[in-house]
């Protein structure tokens, strides 16, 4: 902001941000491909991901025991790894998206209310502090114990863990916006609270929240995978990347692809989400945009 407002600032050399853009575009493409693969998994998967065959531990196409019918090999139950990876990615992304969507909507609402109504601020933020003091994994364990292991428990836990963080970011942003002249002007014009909140405040702090949500998406995927790895995630035979990695652990010595392939996909999703989040922040944050 200060750079943009300072007319006497010396003209800068062309900003050297090209490599970063390239990385961001590459990650956007990667992320897009992963999402497309997940969305069209039923069309792309060559085989039924649940069909067990008497051919377990076949290696991927580069290995010794490769079989053309199973390009990425088979798992310990003789199921096609490629098909399971596609379905697994679908479920993992779905868990991440659902958690972020629920946590995001509630978190934004809580943050806005806290910023707008100072009477609620103290209560809401202390509540947020309480939830923040529980690690996501612990929340996941608790919900899995109560609801039984499965995707709904994970989504609930991760959504709840996401709420206070989003609420904090939204509140911070909204507080800044609240002190702007146009909000004061709106208030003096006699706008109703609802209009002021939705048209003036919310829209102006969404960009920061959106960036945070993108980065949070990567974290959520990671925690969801960890919970599934611990056996609290998707129920068998559902394919889920964390569960698949966990199942492959037993065979790590002689069929390392069963654990490593889902891990590679998890890394790709998280990396892409984080780099995209960074790039979005660069684009949306006026301070960085004008630097």
């Amino acid at each position: 902001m200060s750079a943009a407002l300072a007319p006497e600032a010396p003209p800068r050399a062309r900003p050297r941000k090209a490599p970063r853009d390239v990385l961001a575009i590459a990650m956007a493409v990667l992320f897009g491909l992963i999402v497309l693969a997940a969305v069209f998994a039923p069309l792309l998967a060559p085989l039924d991901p649940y069909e067990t065959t008497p051919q377990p531990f076949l290696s991927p196409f580069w290995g010794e025991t490769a079989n053309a019918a199973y390009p990425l090999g088979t798992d310990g139950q003789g199921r096609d790894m490629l098909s399971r990876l596609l379905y697994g990615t679908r479920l993992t992304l779905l868990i991440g998206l659902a958690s972020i969507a629920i946590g995001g909507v509630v978190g934004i609402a809580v943050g806005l209310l806290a910023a707008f109504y100072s009477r609620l601020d103290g209560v809401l933020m202390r509540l947020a502090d309480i939830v923040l003091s529980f690690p996501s994994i612990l929340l996941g364990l608790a919900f899995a114990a109560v609801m039984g292991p499965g995707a709904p428990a994970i989504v609930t836990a991760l959504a709840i863990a996401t709420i206070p963080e989003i609420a904090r970011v939204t509140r911070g942003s909204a507080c800044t916006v609240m002190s702007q002249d146009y909000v004061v002007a709106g208030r003096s014009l006699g706008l109703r609270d609802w209009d002021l909140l939705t048209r003036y405040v919310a829209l102006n702090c969404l960009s920061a929240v959106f960036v945070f949500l993108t980065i949070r998406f990567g974290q959520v995927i990671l925690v969801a995978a960890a919970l599934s790895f611990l056996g609290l995630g998707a129920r068998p035979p559902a394919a889920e990347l964390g569960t698949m990695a966990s199942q492959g652990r037993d065979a790590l010595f002689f069929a390392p692809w069963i654990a490593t392939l889902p891990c590679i996909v998890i890394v790709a999703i998280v990396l892409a989400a984080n780099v995209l989040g960074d790039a979005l922040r660069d684009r949306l944050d006026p301070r960085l945009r004008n630097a």
Partner: protein
Amino acid sequence: MPRLRSLCRGLALGAGAVLALAGPALAQKSVTIVREVDSNNYDPHKSTARAASEALFMLADTLVSLDYDMATIRPGLATSWAVSDDKKTYTFKLRDDVTFCDGKKMTADDVVYSFKRWLDPATRSPVRWRAGPVDDIVAVDPTTVEYRLKAPFSEMLYQLTQSFAVVVDKSDVEKLGPDFGVKGLNGTGPFCWVDWKPRNEMRMKKNAAYRWGPPIYDNKGPAQVDEIVWKIAPEDNTRLAAIMTGQSQITQYVPYSGMAPIRANRTVKLVESKEAFWTYFIGFKIDKEGVNDPEVRKAMVMAVDQAAIAKNLFFGEVNPAYSYISQDALDWNRKVDAELIRTNVAEANRILDAAGWARGADGFRTKDGRKLSPLLYSFTGSTWQKLSEAVQGDLRKIGVDMRVQLFDATAAWGKMATQEFDAFGMSYPYISAGDALNLYFRSANIPTPNRMNFKEAKVDRLLDAGMTATTDADRAAAYGEVLEDVHRQALWIPLYHEPMKIAVSAKLAPIKAHNNYGCGLYKGLDIRYVQ
């Protein structure tokens, strides 16, 4: 690929070893045994956990002992015993040279006290039934105990070889109160209690006075190592790493994926017992819709490919099971061999078609608008995860949509005591047909361990007949008929029998695996260093 493989192996081993068992160097005469789970306590009358029995066999002794064949009764604290003609009175002659770890002499009074505590309703022992229908137990003189029954109990001597029947010290039990088996236990075993850190380690030291071990051991004197440390390592690869790097000398909890590396490793030997007295199965709750149809159950049993499960999931290290108990177990009925349901997917499909279960558009079967989708409850952890998925996969082939819900061991036992599920996955140890059948198929044992809700007057009668039989032949005939009956009704899907496999460091002399309650080391009298 080989490089990647060795890198993975190195990483897993290194991480496991560093994480779990970093500790001071072991003294030469100390043996570290790693295992998967700990017990909640070591009170012989209050725990049914194998983990408790493993330690109790070493800390204390039973009146009679069991030979490796799981059928021959041998002397223990009793040198001889006589059974009355009506099979209701057992008279045990005790050794008079037995002392507890604290040096106190063991007498018939201690034996009587131990059994009475086992039977006392105040003890609330979950294994009280194993003591039989006791009338009274009396100490005739310091070396004679009379065990009087209200009715004959054909399993009597076998039950007395179990860790629940060990002799404890009255003053120790009274002194420790609720801490008995938690902070200490004064036994007569080859090892004495040092200390126990729950879910971490248990230490025991050699009982130097020990001379009364079971005759199945060549070693007639005290234990040949000074100390045994039982460590808990829940993670499969950690235990594998510990045994392969020499941080542990013995484990009977080797992950199946680790058998091949262990066989290839010259510093570790694998001790295997041919007999397998630990069986994994899925039981049906036979009054629930769908699985209440015997034809459906039969088709489901037929659809499961036990041979493929044993080969693919457990690397051929377990024996595919078609029977509910090992066919080597005492009183197994050879007539049932030919009647066991074998894998036959085509026939299973035919049975379901004939029974009116038609396949829908999704490939799953329905009848009268009800979908055939039984719900299975079992335990989390890699074994049941793998097993349930394999069975689920096999059942899909006959149009059965089995739903699976796995629970942590802390919640699973409670969940499996309810009526919420249609099938349950379980595994169990047994000494004989009678041991297994009385546990699972008695109507009095509903809702647990008879989770099938199986209630048949004829079977109850036969079980009573087997239990009170006065000859081996009568007992075998009664249990044999029960075996025939329950197998014919397809109450379980047997999955596999697990043979005892113990990984032992090459620094130790060869040991022989025992199968008593799945405790492969039994008294541990043959554990010794040779290097």
